[in-house]
């Protein structure tokens, strides 16, 4: 990741150097070579820098530390370290059932074709709430948590498909009529309001 960022910064530095040349001496473009150089410096390189920058920013926005860097998300980040296997996010994070550095994204991403775009638009409204208006005291997912996000990994898995409870309600689960996190099933999720009273797991201890 640092390698790609390094290459991108080098590319940006080159683009800045070329753009600075045309800022100081625009007469360079009088010749054919200057015109080609201007096309590279003021069109091709900036387009490349924006495209690569957008790709890098999209990848960064999938990182756990990106998600929990907002104050309102901080208790949700801490809930990943709860020392209790009943806590579904903590269990997935601590046992690497999801990539630890993409823990939020793995379970909250919209895995449909326009999902990443929808996620970004939702994210921008949350940034607005965080910095312009007021974030709600209790954070809820609009429309509820979709089973599709669980089934993205669990569907087809032997431990999931072979469980008699899952088999009995499989249609309801797949059509999202019954939530995986409904009461009596996997209903202990982040429980962020109680986080200060819970025992925490400390990696390496």
């Amino acid at each position: 990741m640092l390698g790609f960022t390094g290459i991108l910064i080098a590319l940006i530095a080159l683009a800045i150097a070329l753009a600075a040349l045309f800022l100081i001496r625009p007469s360079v473009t009088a010749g054919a070579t200057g015109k080609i150089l201007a096309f590279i410096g003021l069109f091709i390189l900036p387009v490349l820098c924006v495209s690569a920058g957008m790709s890098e920013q999209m990848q960064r926005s999938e990182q756990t530390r990106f998600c929990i860097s907002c104050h309102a998300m901080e208790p949700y980040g801490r809930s990943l370290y709860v020392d209790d296997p009943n806590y579904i996010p903590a269990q997935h994070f601590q046992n690497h059932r999801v990539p630890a550095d993409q823990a939020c994204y793995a379970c909250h991403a919209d895995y449909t074709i326009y999902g990443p775009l929808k996620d970004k638009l939702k994210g921008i409204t949350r940034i607005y709430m965080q910095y312009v208006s007021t974030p709600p005291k209790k954070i809820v997912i609009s429309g509820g948590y979709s089973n599709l996000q669980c089934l993205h990994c669990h569907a087809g898995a032997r431990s999931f498909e072979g469980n008699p409870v899952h088999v009995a309600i499989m249609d309801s689960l797949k059509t999202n009529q019954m939530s995986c996190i409904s009461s009596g099933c996997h209903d202990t999720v982040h429980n962020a309001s109680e986080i200060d009273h819970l025992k925490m797991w400390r990696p390496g201890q």
Partner: protein
Amino acid sequence: MKLGGLGLPTLLRIASVLIIVGLVVEIVSLCWIHPLAFVLFAFVGASLIGIGILVYLASLVFAASPSAENRG
């Protein structure tokens, strides 16, 4: 005021300044992993670079086109 009236050097300078500022904003956004860094890049950096590119392309169309007298 017509865009072509500004002249090629002025338009190139405007494009260069916009692109340089946009690229500096992009570097700043890359040094920071935070939702605001994404907003800074997407809404400020990319917009400045985009406008700079458009000014450069406009300079090719308007300022670099030969005048009526030169066309004969």
